[in-house]
């Protein structure tokens, strides 16, 4: 027997979605509801809470099958718009990673490198319906005699393209400062010397895994908003590390859980998969991700009501500590402070810089909300929980 006062099942919630009577709110809207009515009352009333995040997520890419040629070819090297894809798979399968720069990119030879075009840009252009230049070379076999192919393709021409991101939606991340004497260019953005600015990159109270900190409802098979379309959580992400210190409410004080997500690229939208260039660091892909959280009981209502002042990021020095592999938290700072525009650290007022778009995160949570309200998006029950 459950010790909960309110108990709902996935099936009951889906029935309400089909009937058009489901109550959906965003994770930001949920804060006030729980504050005003309490967790039990909120759990009775609200069925689903939607979340969202939009930021560069380097561990992203796509599996692409580009179809057989005649004569047949077993590709050993593949490029899309001069960006190498990994071809160590079956004959015409490959994987293009978001951070792969194009051939002949000057990289960081003229520092800081601009990294104007890479795998993330290729994925973005494919999704936008643009045609890209596909080139493959092969050593030739008796069953696959062809040695090369070279053609323009669009996403429509590709038999299959699946976005498959081994690590997205990091549950918490560092707040980056630079205690060195020189400006640095990092994956956490530009960091001025002597802690001239503090950069952070999650959507805080709207971020998926802050709203289900112990992964009670998010697991293998959870259907999500991914890149403007539908996707699934298919595994726990790389570096998933649930066993970190947490607040009383369960919020990890360091980077913790991560999601491995995938979905059919053909139903996604370039507005939510944007190729990006990070000065001095490399190319990447900004990914729009949103997870619906079923309010199965009052605990889930409580979790989804988490607010920015209850979530803390560790302050990490990227000038000296991080590159030497000796990153240690120099303090904790709440997302409420981070979002206010400046933090107070060591008697110094440091302006903060977000790298993750709150505007887009809100749009994702609202979009997912309307998909569920309109009946086009049902919830799925996970087949396996993420390790917690």
């Amino acid at each position, binding site marked *: 027997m459950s010790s909960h006062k309110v108990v709902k099942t996935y099936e009951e919630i889906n029935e309400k979605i089909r009937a058009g009577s489901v109550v959906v709110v965003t994770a930001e809207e949920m804060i006030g509801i729980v504050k005003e009515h309490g967790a039990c009352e909120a759990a009775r009333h609200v069925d689903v809470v939607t979340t969202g995040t939009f930021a560069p997520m380097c561990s992203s890419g796509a599996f692409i099958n580009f179809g057989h040629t005649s004569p047949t070819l077993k590709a050993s090297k593949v490029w899309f718009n001069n960006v190498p894809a990994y071809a160590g798979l079956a004959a015409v399968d490959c994987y293009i990673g978001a951070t792969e720069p194009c051939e002949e990119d000057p990289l960081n030879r003229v520092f800081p490198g601009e990294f104007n075009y890479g795998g993330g840009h290729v994925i973005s252009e494919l999704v936008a319906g643009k045609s890209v230049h596909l080139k493959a070379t092969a050593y030739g076999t008796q069953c696959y005699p062809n040695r090369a192919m070279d053609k323009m393709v669009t996403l429509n021409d590709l038999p299959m393209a699946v976005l498959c991101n081994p690590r997205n939606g990091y549950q918490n991340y560092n707040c980056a400062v630079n205690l060195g004497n020189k400006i640095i260019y990092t994956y956490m*953005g530009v*960091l001025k010397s002597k802690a001239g600015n503090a950069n952070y990159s999650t959507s805080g109270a709207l971020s998926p895994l802050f709203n289900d900190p112990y992964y009670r409802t998010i697991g293998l098979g959870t259907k999500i908003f991914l890149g403007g379309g539908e996707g699934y959580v298919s595994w726990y992400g790389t570096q998933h590390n649930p066993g970190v210190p947490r607040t009383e409410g369960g919020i990890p004080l360091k980077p913790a859980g991560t999601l491995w997500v995938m979905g059919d690229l053909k139903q996604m939208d370039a507005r939510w998969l944007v190729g990006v*260039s*990070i*000065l001095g660091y490399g190319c990447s892909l*900004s990914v729009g991700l949103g997870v619906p959280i079923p309010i199965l009981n009052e605990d889930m209502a409580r979790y989804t009501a988490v607010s920015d002042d209850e979530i803390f990021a560790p302050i990490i020095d990227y000038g000296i500590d991080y590159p030497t592999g000796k990153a240690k938290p120099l303090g904790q700072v709440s997302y409420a402070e981070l*979002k206010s525009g400046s933090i107070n650290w060591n008697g110094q007022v440091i302006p903060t*810089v*977000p790298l993750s*778009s709150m505007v887009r995160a809100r749009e994702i949570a609202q979009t997912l909300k309307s998909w569920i309200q309109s009946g086009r998006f049902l919830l799925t029950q996970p087949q396996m929980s993420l390790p917690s």
Partner: protein
Amino acid sequence: MYEKMLILKFPRTNVQEPIVCNLAKNFDLTFTILNAAISPRKEGQMVLQLSGSPHNFDEGVRYLRGRGIIVSNAGEEIRRNDEKCVHCGSCTAVCPTGALSIERPEMLVVFDQEKCSICKLCVSVCPPHAMELRPAENGETQPE
């Protein structure tokens, strides 16, 4: 690295010479042609973004003037491509004038061109390349 936007006014006679190619070849300068209105046997104009070492830059400009070309600095301005801006906020780390700032609590990134000093720092910092350097509208008079 030195970079500048230039307006080249070509006299009638020289237009057929591969002047811009020579500029790249002989002076190790890289260029982007932003705007060109040139036709044979007429005066022509070109807006060119030129970059290279300061020394080569000066030499290159001397070469152009030596060919009878009138070289002047183009007015330039920074504009934001609102289609591309995702309102992440990364640019606010470098903008020295507050032309790029965040409106709270919406977290909308606003660009106030009036405050922009055209330092260009945001151009290479903006991850989706939404900040664009362009010739200023008033600095451009097209030959008829």
